[in-house]
């Protein structure tokens, strides 16, 4: 692999075409198509070096994402994509780590990893396509399924109090938490861009309808279906009197309160704070340690250690 290869000097522009891989195997009408399109858009807009984009996922319909993006990618196991992505992020600061998955993958089997990734503030962007159901396994109750939802595992309607993704993320310590909707392409793009610009653990929950197993789940948040899509009015810090009532994205309690609104709730950025990433903290430790050692070679350091064990 490392033999001389002619490497083109000029880079071509990163187009949607260059980013497109296989045709998605999703059902026609699945909300995930729009999320994919938004991702293409963001990448096209940002023109990151193609080889430094990494698209990762767990298991689920939504987690098939990496196959549909022409970038470095990995399709991992169910629920463990956050630590996989954390390993990539912590060991390769040159990469842009994007992670995609579903509500089951992220909040059920993967719930603990999500939480610890959040508190450690690993630098990566995680998009959760929440369809309130297990799609790939054909309609079981998911941790976000509303009470009463009839599934194969709750034939008379779900009874368990669902996870509130915003609350979970805010309380766990994620430093960027937003919510969007697969029918709102521009909003999705905005949220993804802000998430990607954020240093730290940034999560966008996107309501993405499973037309096959939970059609109509999000009608109440789709204006053309008579629903309401209300965006969070963020503080502009412009001293205007109306700014008082606006949402301060750095206020944890305020964010938590917004998360308590009944469905469909609000969309936009709930929470966005600066806290040192684990990436930065570990990097600093490494740098301090190496400085103390006078940047000796690996061989010298190990030899020194062995000398002490004689």
């Amino acid at each position: 692999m490392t033999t001389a290869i002619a490497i083109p000097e000029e880079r071509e522009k990163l187009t949607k075409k260059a980013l497109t891989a296989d045709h998605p195997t999703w059902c026609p009408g699945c909300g995930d198509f729009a999320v994919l399109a938004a991702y293409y858009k963001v990448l096209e807009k940002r023109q990151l070096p193609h080889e430094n984009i990494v698209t990762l996922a767990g298991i689920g319909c939504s987690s098939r994402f990496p196959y549909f993006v022409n970038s470095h990618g990995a399709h991992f196991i169910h629920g463990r994509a956050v630590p996989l992505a954390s390993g990539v992020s912590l060991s390769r600061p040159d990469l842009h780590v994007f992670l995609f998955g579903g509500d089951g993958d992220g909040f059920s089997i993967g719930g603990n990893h999500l939480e610890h990734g959040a508190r450690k503030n690993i630098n990566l962007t995680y998009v959760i396509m929440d369809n309130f159901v297990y799609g790939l396994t054909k309609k079981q109750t998911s941790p976000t399924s509303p009470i009463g939802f009839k599934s194969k595992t709750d034939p008379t309607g779900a009874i368990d109090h669902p996870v509130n993704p915003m609350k979970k993320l805010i309380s766990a310590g994620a430093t960027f938490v937003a919510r969007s909707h697969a029918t709102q392409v521009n909003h999705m793009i905005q949220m993804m861009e802000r998430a990607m610009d954020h240093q730290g653990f940034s999560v966008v929950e996107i309501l993405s309808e499973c037309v096959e197993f939970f059609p109509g789940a999000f009608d109440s948040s789709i204006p053309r279906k008579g629903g309401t899509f209300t965006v969070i009015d963020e503080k502009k810090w412009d001293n205007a009197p109306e700014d008082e009532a606006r949402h301060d994205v750095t206020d944890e309690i305020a964010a938590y309160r917004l998360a308590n609104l009944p469905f469909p709730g609000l969309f936009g950025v709930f929470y966005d704070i600066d806290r040192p990433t684990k990436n930065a903290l570990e990097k600093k430790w490494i740098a301090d340690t190496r400085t103390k050692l006078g940047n000796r070679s690996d061989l010298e350091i190990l030899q020194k250690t062995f000398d002490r064990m004689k």
Partner: protein
Amino acid sequence: MSTSPVVEEHETPSPDTGGARADLRPEHIRDAVIRLAGNSQDGIQSAGAFLARLAGRSSQDVMTYMTIPSTISGGASIFQVRIGSGEVLSAGDEADFLVAFYQHSYDEHIHYLREGGVLLYDSDHVQPDPEEKRFVHVGVPITGLTIEALGGTAKDKGKNIFVLGLLAKIFHFDVEKLKKLIAERFGGKSEDVLNTALMAFQAGFAYPVGNVLTRLYHFEPVEASDRAQITMDGNQALAYGLIAAGVRYGAGYPITPWSSIMEILRAELPKYGGLFVQAEDELGAVSLALGMSYAGHLAITGSAGPGISLKTEAIGWASMAEIPLLVVNVQRGGPSTGLPTNVEQSDLYQAIFGGHGDSPRVVLAASTVEDCFYIALEAARIARKYSTPVFILSDTSLATRIEAFDEPDLAQLMENSAPDISPRDGEFKPYALDHLTHHAPPGSRMLGGKYPVVTGLEHDEMGHPTGSPKLHTAMTAKRRRKLQDLAAEIPVPEVHGDPEGDVLLVGWGSTYGPIHEAVNVARERGETLSAIHLRHIHPLPDGLEQIFSRFQRVLVVEMNDEGPYGYGQLASILRARYCDPKIRSLTKTDGLTFRVREILEGALQ
């Protein structure tokens, strides 16, 4: 049974016997087993460790053995040191010297003292059986004298060093070397601490123990070897072996007896620009490590049995996605939480067969502390070459014992660690059927424009999911062939002892020492006995059948259960492969290392 020290009598006293009494019979000894029995808070481990390190610095061989109390902190425990001017292969079946700090130490360990051995006891705490005539009884008021020497405050902390002084006197240890070791150890702390330690040492050394001994012990001098000796335990050797192998990233979760490997790596890797992450659990740890490996570093994760069980699913992904990964299992007694501080070799089946589906992985097992270092290098080489998960099996015994070994030639051994993110040409296929997989980690430009996806679904050569019957057959074979190629490449183990004969012992892992000592003892007695030791357990090296064919019986010695059909874990694997009914088992499940005597009894009856 001669695991007792080889004692040679000398007529002339050796030159440096100093102020020794003239009436003592001087003895040059080649080997001594000293068991310190007390409570773990008495610092017997650190006294023992000083002895081990001293031996290492004196070009002697050494092996230690310790028990960890099951109470959370404190509690009865022992530390045994065997020092030899010749090869030391086990920590000794019996002790030549027993140091008993308490009555319970005496009661529980006196039967480990060989006949004619020396009982050194704290006469402030211990009353030996006055009727007992088989041993030399040496009472020293250790507690009182230590209080006296140190002024009462630090009594518990000083007794171990006092005893070190006593032993230095008895064995004519090199006092200057010992003091230097003490200074190195306590030098970093306040001057007071060091002074206190040296005072305790002096007090012990000054005690006229010679008065009550009948012999004057002196280790045969050993020719200084050309390479210095390193003294460390198996977990240290494994951790530093990984560093030498260029492993710079990893993740884990604490569990006895694996924890110290992760603690060393967590503290050390930043020096090398790397990083070890303490994860939220073992599933997170293995996934983090796989992320690091996917990113182009060869990463390491590890645990003991319970944690390895939790990593099973993700290791299967490594098999399928063909991602290199090192998985260390420091085995302890099982099943379940089992016996956390005892030794067992009962995780072999799981290492080979634990995954669902046909999920090939390589399994290596370290045989000695020194081998812990080298096996890490080999495991890393195999993982990189075959892009596969590799298990390294160690165990409680290796993890916690100290040995001295020749300093490795680091300049020769150190491996480079940078990910290969060179551009790949248009022909690149992540899972090409016609050659070994070597992934293009993220950051590699794909000049053909097609970027690879690695996946745990069955896939075609490009990494696309497929349900094609032909491809599943072909890819399954591709993954399996890695084991077959490796088998052809690894060396056939050498036979220790006669190349043919009645009984061939087969060992793996930490039983190396007692098995080899058993062979030596048998041969000294004029019996024939041979042994091979397997470091490569899955796949097995080619050519074992030729070795087996030269023996009447093949006895696999391992610390695990005989199972429903009467065969231990490695024995079953060898039987399945060779269908040779002369392959039989010598197993045990008492949570203790094999004694040389047990092996001899099993082999020669």
